C-alpha cells in the first residue's frame, strides 16, 4: 500500500490501531446482540443455529404489544407538540437580536443540561402536587419538555444556514409574512423540521428513566417493559426485542440524517 506522506497519520503509528479498536468496541456489542437475536437456542448466548422464532414469540406477546402501543402514542403526541413549539421558537430566535435572547436560549437548552433523574423526580413531585394523574398523559407532558430542544436544534441550524436575501426578496415583491413563510421559509425549512421531529420521536421512544418515574400502572412503555424483562434475566426474548429496538433507532436516525442533508 502506498503511504500518503501528506497525511500526518503515517508518522503516528499508534493512532490507527486505536481508532480501529475504538470502532470495534463501539460496534461489537451491537453486532453480538443482533446475531444472538437470531439464535434458535434457549440459552441466549451459545450459538446453535439460525432462527427467527424469538421474533415471532415476542411479536405475539400481548403485554409487549400493549407497551409498544403506549410508547408509540407517547412518542407521536410529544413529537407533534414539541416540533410545533420548536419550529415557532426557532423562527423567533433566528437572526436579529432581542432583549432576553440569552435567557430564552438557556431555557430552550435547559432540558439537555438537567440530569435525567433530577428531571424525573422533580416532575413526579410536581405532578403529585398539582394533581396530574400518573399515566400516559403525564408521560407525554414530561417527554414534550425534553423533545423540544432535540427538535429545536436542527430546525434552528437549518434556519441559520438560509439566505436572508430570499425573505427580503419576497418582502420586496409584496409578499406578506404568511405568504413569505408558506412560499419561501417552509419549503426550505421542512428538512430541518422533519429531521428534528424524527430525533424527538426516537428520543421519546427510547426514554426510560423519566417514563419510569412519572408513569403509572397502565402506562408501561416499551423500555419499561424491556427493563422488567432484563431484571428477570437474560433470555432470547429480550435479545429479540432489544434487537428490534436497535434496528428501529438506527433506521430512524439514518433517515433523519439523510433528510437533513437535502440541499437548500
Amino acid at each position, binding site marked *: 500500500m502506498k503511504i500518503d506522506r501528506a497525511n500526518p497519520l503515517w508518522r503516528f503509528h499508534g493512532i490507527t490501531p486505536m481508532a480501529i*479498536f475504538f470502532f470495534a468496541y463501539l460496534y461489537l456489542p*451491537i453486532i453480538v446482540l443482533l446475531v444472538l437475536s437470531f439464535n434458535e437456542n434457549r440459552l441466549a448466548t451459545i450459538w446453535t443455529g439460525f432462527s427467527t422464532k424469538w421474533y415471532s414469540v415476542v411479536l405475539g406477546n400481548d403485554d409487549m404489544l400493549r407497551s409498544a402501543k403506549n410508547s408509540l402514542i407517547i412518542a407521536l403526541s410529544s413529537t407533534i407538540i414539541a416540533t410545533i413549539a420548536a419550529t*415557532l421558537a426557532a423562527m423567533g430566535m433566528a437572526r436579529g437580536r432581542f432583549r432576553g435572547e440569552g435567557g430564552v436560549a438557556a431555557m430552550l437548552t435547559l432540558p439537555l443540561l438537567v440530569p435525567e433523574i433530577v428531571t424525573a423526580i422533580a416532575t413526579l413531585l410536581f405532578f403529585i402536587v398539582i394533581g396530574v394523574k400518573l399515566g400516559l398523559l403525564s408521560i407525554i407532558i414530561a417527554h414534550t419538555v425534553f423533545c423540544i430542544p432535540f427538535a429545536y436544534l436542527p430546525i434552528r441550524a437549518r434556519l441559520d444556514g438560509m439566505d436572508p436575501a430570499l425573505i427580503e426578496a419576497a418582502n420586496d415583491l409584496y409578499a406578506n409574512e404568511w405568504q413569505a413563510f408558506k412560499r419561501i421559509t417552509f419549503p426550505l425549512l421542512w428538512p430541518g423540521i422533519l429531521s428534528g421531529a424524527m430525533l424527538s420521536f426516537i428520543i421519546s421512544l427510547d426514554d426510560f428513566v423519566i417514563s419510569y418515574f412519572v408513569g403509572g400502572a397502565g402506562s408501561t412503555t416499551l423500555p419499561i417493559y424491556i427493563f422488567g424483562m432484563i431484571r428477570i434475566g437474560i433470555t432470547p426474548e429480550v435479545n429479540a426485542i432489544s434487537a428490534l429496538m436497535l434496528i428501529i433507532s438506527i433506521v430512524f436516525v439514518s433517515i433523519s440524517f439523510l433528510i437533513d442533508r437535502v440541499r437548500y
Partner: protein
Amino acid sequence: MEIFTRHKRFWLVAPAVIYIGFFMGLPLVQMAYVSILERGANGGVNWGSFSFDSYISFIFERDLMDNLMVNTDYLQIFLRSFGLSALTTVLALILGFPTAFYIAMQPQKRRNMFIFLVTIPFWTNILVRNYAWMLLLRNGGLIDHFLASVGIQTGGLDILYTPYAVSIGLTYTYLPFMVLPIYASLEKLDHRLIEAAFDLGANKRKAMTRIILPLATPGIVAGAILVFIPCLGAYVTPELLGGGKFMMISNLIGSQFGAARNWPFGSALGFVLLAMVLLAMLVYSLKFKKLPEDAS
C-alpha cells in the same frame, strides 16, 4: 433584515419557553423547596414545616439517644460516583482522542461517515446498549467463551455486577461525547503545521505535545465535561451492569421515591446533583468559551 418584528418574535418563542418554564422550571424550584421540608410520617412531606434534616442526614444520622453520628454511607455513594465518572472520563479520553485525531486526518467525505458511525450508538436505546454488555460480560458469556477458546480458563469471568462492569458500560455510553468536540477542534488542523514541526526537527512526542495537543485542548476540556457530567447522573448502567449493588447518585435519588419514601432527602440529593452540574457548566462557559474571542 429580520424575518419577523420584535413583537411577533416574542409570541413565536413564548409557547416553547412557557412550556419548559412551567413543566421543568417550576418543578425544579419546587424540588428545591421540598428539600427543606420535613418528611411526612408515612412518606410524603409536611407542607409548611421546614427542616434541614435532609441536608444534615447526608453526613450524620441520629442514634437512639438523638445524638448526631457521622454516617458515611451516602458520602461513599457520592465518592464512588465521582470516582467512576473520573475513571470513565480518562478511559473515554484514551480511546476518544486517537479516534478523533484519526477521523480529522481523513479526507472530507470519509470524515462525515466516521462521525455518523460515532453518533449512531448514542441514538440507540440505553437499556439495549447496556443489555448487550450483559451478554458479553456475564459468566458463560461471549468474552468468557473467547478467553476459554484461546486457552485462558477463567472459571467464570465474575466481572458482571462489579464496578468494573459499570465502568466499561459508562465508557461505552458516553464515549461519543468525547470524540465529537475533540474532532471539532482538530478538524481545521492544517497538515502542513505538523510537517513543519517535523521539518524543524521535532520528534513525534514534541509534535504531539507542542502542536496537536494544544490545538485539541478546547475540545478535550469540552469532551471531558460532556462525559463527566452525564456520567455523574447515570442511572441505567449502575442499575443493570452493577446489578443494583453499586449505587451511584441517581440510583440513591431514585430509591428515595421508591422503597425508602423520603421525598425531602431525595429532593435534597437531586438539588445537590443539579447544583454541581450547573456549576460545572457555568465555570466552563466563563473560563473556556471566552478564550477564542480573547485570543483573536
